């Protein structure tokens, strides 16, 4: 029996106390935050940060960003991934949430580990999901890493993206006093519009 999908509706302006209550300092709790490394987790610690821009180039102060990623061995913490060796960090779920409304520059950030490639011949990446007021259906994109040039060159998904737009998917690495940081800005529209995927 097949059924019809329930339509998506915007997350609206008031998701903060529903989905990210602790980040926004409400008294109730949230199920996920922007600290993905909890306990013993293998891999290079990285920070991902960025802003979300609307069609006027204004930073969006009420976007919700979610990420989903493999661990350093390229394995997902999910029953469908039974590949061996199953080097699962049991403490690493690989899922994070962050709203853009609590930092002074309206950025999101995630402290996580750099994922390994999930399949041979593919570049490592992180799935990024974007929600905000004004966005009637959430949008999927992928964050690839600027320091993986040769893997990116060979990646079959990046290859589907017109060459001039690929740069919108590359998070730019820089070394900071607190470790490596990747800058990943998301542009909803305009000349630099981020590539979004129909997955």
């Amino acid at each position: 029996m097949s059924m019809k999908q329930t339509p998506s509706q915007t997350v609206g302006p008031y998701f903060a106390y529903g989905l990210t209550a602790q980040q926004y300092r409400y008294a109730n709790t949230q199920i996920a935050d922007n600290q993905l490394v909890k306990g013993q987790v293998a891999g290079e610690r990285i920070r991902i940060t960025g802003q979300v821009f609307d069609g006027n180039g204004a930073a969006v102060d009420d976007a919700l960003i979610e990420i989903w990623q493999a661990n350093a061995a390229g394995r997902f913490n999910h029953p469908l991934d039974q590949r061996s060796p199953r080097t699962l960090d049991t403490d690493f779920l690989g899922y994070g949430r962050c709203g853009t409304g609590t930092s002074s520059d309206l950025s999101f950030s995630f402290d996580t580990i750099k994922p390994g490639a999930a399949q041979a011949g593919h570049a490592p990446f992180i799935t990024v999901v974007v929600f905000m007021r004004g966005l009637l259906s959430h949008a999927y994109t992928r964050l690839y890493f600027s320091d993986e040039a040769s893997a990116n060159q060979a990646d079959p998904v990046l290859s589907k993206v017109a060459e001039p737009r690929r740069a919108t998917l590359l998070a730019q690495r820089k070394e900071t006093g607190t470790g490596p940081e990747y800058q990943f800005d998301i542009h909803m529209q305009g000349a630099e519009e981020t590539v979004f995927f129909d997955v």
Partner: protein
Amino acid sequence: MTQLTKRDWSSHAAFISPEYKSSSLRGVSQNLVKIDPELAELTGPAFGQEVIGPLDHDLTKNGQVNGEPIGERILVTGTVFDELGQPVPNTLIEVWQANAAGRYVHKRDQHDAPIDPNFLGAGRCLTDENGRYKFYTIKPGAYPWGNHPNAWRPNHIHFSLLGPCISSRLVTQMYFPGDPLLAYDPIYIATPEAARERLVSEFSLDVTEDGFALGYIFNIVVRGVNATPMEA
């Protein structure tokens, strides 16, 4: 053979829907790039009872400070299915909503309607082994918003679901049957007409609890995954 049903764009609003003003600068404007699902799309986070507190499903109780919240007590129940018709067990549902006066706890909500000190308006639960869920809450009020002159949002409850994988993620809003504001709401109307009624709950005397709370049924359908684990 692994199968992930596609996002059904005949069921979802266009990214840019001019009547909904803020979509014009925030909606995706270029075509999406189609990709075949890989493990990253077929997998996703799962949460269990460890994230559910004893009152998380009961919004009539989880915000109480010194008494009962004001308003019409209701329950909302239903089944989460995937598009293949299978119930989705043990999946997380998060909800948030305005109070009976149409005011959110959210710090940014400046609508001149009273905060209810005994109502938070946020909760969560897991579906059971048959995909069923139930919340108790207060019927949310309508409220004005700035989209156009005399714009009012119909009564609604925000729902967020994870489903079996990150690709089945769904954020939506549940409406109430017979609400006259639906016909004027750009967010509701942005949904293709044939799909809109799936956003409207059904009043049910069968699930209404005698002497306690009116019952509404809201079944939810997310994308389906029919998959065998990847081994190697």
